[in-house]
């Protein structure tokens, strides 16, 4: 169907077609320009370059052989205003005089914080009942894998942990 009225010549129609395209084109460009700050603002905290850092969590001698102990440290948050919320925790276990392991407190199921029950040497999750043995392997409940670990090193008798992203369990875990 033709939306032209009687008495309109071909040039008018052509002109109108051109102006329709021009207007919608300008509209789209404006939309794209306005979307730009929105998208960059949403992505900035995510794409910001972050360097994981080593944090001291205590002297080697603070950890007894075979003992599991919770340590806290500041995560590598790039924001000065994060304050207390940027603190993270991990469980450190001294396996032998020179071997340490550090477990993430986040349950490998859905990330809730697991509790260490000293006597039974188990980590228990309050959310959906995940249980882990002292070596971090899964003991019971819904977690698809064992607890995540932090890189760890000893420097001049001082134990250091490398900050990590909150571990996200993916489908292939």
């Amino acid at each position: 169907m033709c939306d032209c009225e009687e008495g309109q010549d071909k040039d008018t129609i052509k002109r109108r077609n051109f102006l329709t395209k021009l207007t919608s084109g300008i509209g789209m460009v404006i939309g794209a320009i306005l979307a730009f700050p929105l998208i960059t603002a949403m992505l900035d905290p995510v794409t910001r370059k972050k360097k994981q850092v080593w944090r001291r969590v205590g002297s080697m001698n603070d950890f007894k052989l075979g003992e599991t102990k919770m340590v806290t440290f500041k995560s590598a948050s790039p924001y000065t205003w994060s304050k207390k919320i940027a603190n993270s925790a991990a469980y450190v276990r001294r396996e032998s005089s020179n071997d340490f392991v550090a477990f993430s407190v986040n349950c490998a199921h859905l990330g809730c914080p697991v509790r260490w029950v000293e006597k039974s040497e188990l980590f228990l999750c309050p959310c959906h009942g995940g249980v882990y043995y002292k070596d971090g392997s899964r003991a019971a409940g819904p977690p698809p894998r064992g607890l995540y670990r932090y890189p760890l090193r000893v420097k001049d008798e001082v134990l250091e942990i490398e900050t990590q992203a909150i571990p996200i369990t993916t489908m292939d875990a």
Partner: protein
Amino acid sequence: MRSYLKNILKWMDDRGGFSELLKPLTTHLVPPDATWNYVWGSATLFCLVLQVVTGISLGFLYQPSADVAYESLQYIENDAFLGSFIRGLHNWGASGMVFLMGIHMVRVYLNAAYKYPREMSWITGVILMAITIIMAFTGQLLRWDNNGVWSAVVAAEQMGRIPFIGKSISYFLLGGDTIGGETLNRFFSMHVFLFPALIFLMVTYHLYLVFRNGISEPPKAGRPVNPKTYRKWYEEMLQKKGVPFFPDALWRDAIFSALVLVVLLVLAFFVGAPALTTAPDMTNVNVDPKPDWYFTWIFALFALMPREIESYVMFFGPVIGIGLLFALPFLSNKGERSPLKRPWAVAGTLFIVLSISSLWYIGSIAPWSPRFDAEPLTKYTVPKASSQVERGIQLFNDEGCIYCHQIGEQGGIRGPNLTNVQNRLNKDQLIIRIVNGAENMPAYGGSLTKEELADIVEFLLQNQKK
């Protein structure tokens, strides 16, 4: 004086075109028998209005900063004039909105109002449902107590199950790779700017569709929808016996919304919003994160699903569910509308409502969660206990057996009640079970000495609550 005022009003209407705008809406004809079953949608909209008003009120009192948000909530709850009441109203308004939206949706489905020509109403409705759920979730998170921060982590973990891009989406949600100064602000911006804007757009369009395609007439068995003739038939029916939307239909909406308001006011005043838990602190593991009631059934699902398939269900479940909802008006857009002629639709609805209700019920008990606060047993649990049994009782507490197993009235309910376990298992069977564990019980072989094992078994064999 009166005529003077009247003149002003007349001028405003002449230049402002108010009656011109409203008249088509008020005189819009609706089916005369669209009565009390048609109030659910408008009541949901009323809750949205209430949420906007109470939300703006809270916005004047709340500090959206990871550092002090929790303190400002304490202020709202304890110091601000009517603060606790406003927060209660916002909380119950949200509950009302989710609840009424659910009924509205079930009503529309059972009466097949989504069929020709109202498919777009259904589709925009599904989008609105999704946004409402997002609002409910981001809202409970803004409380920013320990429950709030851990909710953010749990949400991010769920996103992680999306193939390929899951991790990126998780860290996108958190605003970085850990909970930090940026996390709360993102959820705040989503809850207060982004999704409300989308809701307003969608609601406006959803309402426009009601006027454009007309309110669906109550279905009648044996009167199927025929897309070829429906519009003409509907138009003729309205011309013959339609009634103006205002006031013939709207008065019921007004009464019902007022009723909803009264209920919400009472709940806000007497029950209030959920109590704040402890301050947000990622180094405090002595917490017990639980979602608000809307998500309790999903919380239960995550605990009960076989773990081999859980990661897949977490991703494919919502995808298939939302996909089916969107596909519904295309799968069946004509034919019978009456639930009397659609037994499978009724059965399906009943099945879903019952499943979700059962999950809700079990989720509110959360039997799978260890009870860290279980009252420890004492040596009097067994009358005249020998010293070995006493040691067994002590171990039952210390080893955390009691977090998951009940003795008498005390203890968790993750595992079986062990009050009279000696009637089910003999000594050897008990030892095997404790040492090796089971699918949902850790093996204690590594952490118990031989003597300790003997003590516990002795206690369990003795234990008879008189």
